[in-house]
């Protein structure tokens, strides 16, 4: 095992991202799906920062901050929707929310 390099960061980022993807695909609880989305966003952040670090370009850092702000906003709105869904339907299970189909 050599020193920790760019590939390691990128590999970690990919693993995190696919953990998020599988979380979205296979979990039923909306809150968990939500957390999985956060995980994907953070994986993307890690990729940006990695490239910024290894190419000496500050753009990646800037975008990472943007993504964090976006994630915060998204979490705010998403959780608010969740609260409303729970109040109306008394459930946060994704499989129960299929009104659009019928």
């Amino acid at each position: 095992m050599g020193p920790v390099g760019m590939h390691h960061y990128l590999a970690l980022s990919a693993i995190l991202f696919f953990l998020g993807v599988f979380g979205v695909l296979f979990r039923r609880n909306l809150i968990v799906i939500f957390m999985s989305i956060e995980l994907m966003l953070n994986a993307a952040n890690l990729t940006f920062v990695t490239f910024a670090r290894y190419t000496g370009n500050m753009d990646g850092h800037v975008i990472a901050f943007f993504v964090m702000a976006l994630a915060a906003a998204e979490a705010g709105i998403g959780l608010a929707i969740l609260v409303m869904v729970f109040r109306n339907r008394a459930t946060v299970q994704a499989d129960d929310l299929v009104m659009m189909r019928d």
Partner: protein
Amino acid sequence: MERYLWIIPFAPLLGAIVNGKLAALYARREKGPPEWVVSLVGCAAPILSFLVAAALFVQMRAAPASERLFTQTLYTWIAAGPVQVDFAFMVDALAMVMVLVVTGVGSIIHVYSVGYMHGDRGYARYFAYLNLFMFSMLTLVMAKNLPLLFVGWEGVGLCSYLLIGFWYRDIANAAAGKKAFIVNRVGDFAFLLGMFLIFVTTQRVGHPTLDVPALRALVGEHPQVFGGIATAACLLLFVGATGKSAQIPLYVWLPDAMAGPTPVSALIHAATMVTAGVYMIARMSFLYDLAPAAMAVVATIGAATAIFAASIGFAQRDIKRVLAYSTVSQLGYMFMAVGVGAYGAGIFHLMTHAFFKACLFLGSGSVIHAMSGEQDMFRMGGLAKTMKVTAATFLIASLAIAGVPPLAGFVSKDEILWMTFSTPLQPPWLPYLLWAVAFVAAGMTAFYVFRAVFLTFYGEDRVSAEAKHHLHESPAMMTVPLVLLAAGSVLAGFLGWPAALRGGNWFHNWLAPVFGGHDAGHGGEHALADVVGPVAASAGGHDATVEYALMALSVAIGLAGIFMAYRLYIKNPALPARITARLGRFYRMVFNKYYVDEIYEHTIVRPGYGLSDKVMFRFVDMGIIEGIVNGLGITARLVGATVRLFQSGVIRTYAFFLLLGFVLIVWRMVR
């Protein structure tokens, strides 16, 4: 004066607009607009037209024969490349006669209508239609070009339809109006085709036009080219005329048209509109002269219609229907006249007929009015005692139509008979055959008209007690027009008093310039002569003895017809029933109008209906057109139903497709 030409048609149009507006304003109210306002507007319009026309006539008479032409262009109606069609009027000697007849007789009938239609809920609507008719008819007569003539032609057809179905709450009246309209449509289609053919031919000689004077000049310049199409064009135009002027085979609508108010029958279906076909042929005489075959057809159809309709008139019970068949028969005479090239005689009979037939119709209207709507002559009789003026005028007009000298009908009918007899045609026996047919028809005319006179006004009283109760002579508003028309029936003949009886035949000379000096009486340099062979010595010096003999014969058969009617319906009223019983089947055939309506029903109407229903409606419309429309809808629904399967509502499925799409895109980009 020439610039006031437009007043003649537009005064009635204004009247129609005013009365139409009034009728619409009062449509939802209990009562119609005040009758005196409607009558004032409705009658003033045609009378104004008549006065202008009379003033024009005075001016025209003062002018030398070659300058007797008024024209006025209002605006350019159609401008398409080299073709220009104007909204333009033209009044020459021929149109002048028509304008005077239409506005003169028209005004009288308008005044009569004031009395006849009194108290009718549709009073304003009636006068609006009647004025609109006057506008259309005058446009037809005064049109300078064929498209404008066609506008008038259709306009009078429309007004005829509206007025036949005037009392539209009775379904039979509405059906009669529809029948008139549809039968006329058949003729109009042929008329249009004829017009197109003429237009295409003018294009071929490099001068596309439909102006009547220009056409006339053009036909004169290129007789060869126009001679080639003249027969087809003239026959097509004539088919149009058979529709409008109720000739075989399209006459069936006219008897049914009697469903309209009686003054309408007098104005439209006797005096003016139905003569439009005769006028049109006279107007296009320069073309007809090139087509002797078409002329022969016109004359033959005319003669056939004259005798055919007269025979149906024998067996009718309805007084108006007798007159209707009589009109068809008399129109046949007019067509026979123009068919042998005696345009002047045809127009002359048109004019005298307008007087005596309008008088007969208005007289019958007066009777129907007095009898509270009864039209069956077998429930009348002896009315002369109570209705003196009506009976007297009816009698005068009947004598005129029967051809008793010196009344108008004698002069004009005799001129037609003589012209038919003396004009050489191809084949050579044709004039004699036509004459014989018309001669017999003249006797029949006298018989059936006097049958109507005797059944209605004389003989035993068959009036029901109820009708008798309010039997009365009509008001002056109705009898004065009757007297005027009766006077016309007496005097109009003297305008064309034949030369053989030491008359000047003023009417003939008046019209002669319009027909290029060609009217059998003068004969000569005409194109007809080239085709038919030299016109025999009919010019001026014809054998007066023959003419006297024929005249005496036609008077004799007229009197014989009257005498027959007298024998059968006054002297021996039981005889007709015995005769009809003896004839049995034949009588029933005539009584049922030779089953022509039934034949048309089975050969044309039913198959036409079947075609519309089975082919056009069920196959074309419901099958093809609705198939396309519904097919589009069904396709959209099927596509939707398929795509709908993807919308499961399960978020994970969506996310999966999202990922799938993402992977596919990335895969394509990386590869």
